[in-house]
């Protein structure tokens, strides 16, 4: 508490812990970045140098020549589509759960928890068969639908909690003012839920942008390939050529970093309101 226990020792300790945290969190990423900038021959020399003696962008050139830009765009498209679908359906469903009592509510709640606990790995193969059956294998739509199905429960969960933290009187007064219930949701509840929407959206983006287990199963052609699959393929093409691999990794990381750094305060705020109150 603020009442002064003024000790430079405490500050020192805090600084020390902070430094440890920063190094532990960032070192692998930093090391990967530095490696991706070293010429191939310098990468495996011993003892390793932390900073590249000569900086080269050759590995980045390699991966862009191998189509990384297309993969990047595919990832953007799939992530955006998944977020849109998840938020769209999730915002509606969460409202249904947050504001109504209805027969089967318990069953729906149990189903949501159940979906969160089904291992993705166990669904891969039948999902592939099913998606193939409706002709969506190797399409972005197929991937978006599957991603959304996996991520909807957490979106609903976050948003329902967020809605419940908003006073219901706001919707009532909107309805008094002549808005339909749906319009009240659209014009009053959703704008107020922005932190919740962003938090939910970020969870979805992290999943959609980073997934490779599902995508590696459902996608096959180069046109549709997302970035993690691209990287996974680099793993096959280049074997242990760490240069291009790490370069691709760095490229895949940047967009998400930017999003997160910009939105992290919403992320916290959106999670704060009620979603952990059970």
């Amino acid at each position, binding site marked *: *508490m603020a009442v002064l226990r003024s000790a430079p020792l405490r500050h020192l300790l805090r600084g020390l*812990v*902070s430094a440890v*945290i*920063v190094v532990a*969190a*960032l070192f*692998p*990423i930093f*090391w*990967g970045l530095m490696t991706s900038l070293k010429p191939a021959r310098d990468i*495996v020399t*011993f003892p390793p140098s932390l900073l590249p003696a000569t900086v080269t962008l050759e590995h980045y050139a390699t991966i862009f020549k191998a189509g990384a830009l297309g993969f990047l765009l595919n990832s953007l498209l799939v992530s955006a589509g998944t977020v849109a679908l998840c938020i769209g*359906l999730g915002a509606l*469903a969460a409202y*249904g759960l947050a504001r*109504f009592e*209805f027969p089967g*509510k318990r069953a729906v709640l149990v*189903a949501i928890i159940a979906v*969160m606990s*089904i*291992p993705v*790995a*166990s*669904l891969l*193969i*039948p999902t592939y*068969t*099913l998606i193939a059956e409706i002709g969506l294998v190797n399409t972005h739509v197929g991937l978006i*639908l599957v991603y*959304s*199905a996996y991520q*909807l*429960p957490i979106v*609903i969960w976050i948003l329902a909690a967020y809605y419940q933290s908003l006073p219901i009187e706001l919707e009532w007064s909107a309805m008094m003012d002549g808005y339909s*219930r749906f319009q009240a949701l659209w014009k009053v509840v959703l704008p107020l839920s922005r932190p919740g929407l962003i938090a939910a959206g970020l969870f979805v983006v*992290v999943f959609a*942008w*980073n997934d*490779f*287990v599902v995508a590696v199963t459902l996608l096959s052609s180069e046109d549709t390939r997302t970035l993690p699959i691209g*990287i*996974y393929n680099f*793993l096959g093409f280049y074997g242990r050529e760490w240069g291009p691999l*790490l370069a691709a*990794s760095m490229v*895949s*990381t940047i967009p*998400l*970093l930017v999003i*997160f750094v910009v939105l*992290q*305060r919403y992320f*916290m705020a959106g*999670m*704060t309101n009620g979603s*952990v*109150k*059970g």
Partner: protein
Amino acid sequence: MMDGQRTPFQAYRYLLPALVLEAGFVFAPLALSLFYSVHRVRYYQLGDFNGVQNYLDVLSHRLFLNSFLVTCSFSLMALALTFAVGFGLALFLNRDTSGSILLRTIVLLPYVIAMLVGSMLLKWIFSTDAGLVPLAAAWFNITSPTILADPDYAMAAMVANGIWRDSAFAMVMLLAGLRSIPPNLILAARIDGAGSFMIFRRIMLPLLRPAILITLIRLLLHFANVLTFPLILTGGGPNNATETLALRIFRIGFEDFDLGKANAMAIVLCLFNIVAVILLLAVFRKTRGGQSL
């Protein structure tokens, strides 16, 4: 109601699209998985019904017990340590100073970068070729361990991967929990004469129960089912020391081309999840008794 007749089923107008999506892409595949698991499915071709034979086959395999134990020990170690680190971070970074906000963002980075990438970065660090491990070994003047080729070290590496990536998730969830505690309660306890430890144990911990439970469940499910860590970091080895149930499903399905058995295994993993969550809930319920006066 203003927008039409009010019925008890009105809520379904909001829920239906989501329910349809879940039914189509989660529950239907699950049903299909169940169907496959009682059939012979070789080389991606549906064969005859063969009852529980697939289950008997996978459960009686030596590597089943191995992967079961690997999954259990990995999940428990990763869960305990990730939770502890995440909790520590949440407490340490609870205040909204600019330094804390920056640190929180930094801690979140391993969580937001692709698991594939993260595991690859760690593999690169742990591999002898990168030179870091031999370098560290040279400092301590010991023979350089081969981390990824030693069963114990490889497991430790996988646990480290879990902590490195997922502590941030635990931190976010627990921070959210901390935020939901009215600050007045902490102030009141302080004025009531409680010290930091007592406030933590008697006020914060009990009030964080829901957040802690949700964090534990989500982490447990994540760790019990994670495929990327073993697939990329350790390849399940050495000596299958890091071959989790999820990796085994993947192998049986995509390397042995036996979808019948893979799906039987998947159903087993599902049951494993359910049992794990029930156990966690039971443990949680039990501890509740201990906190009363």
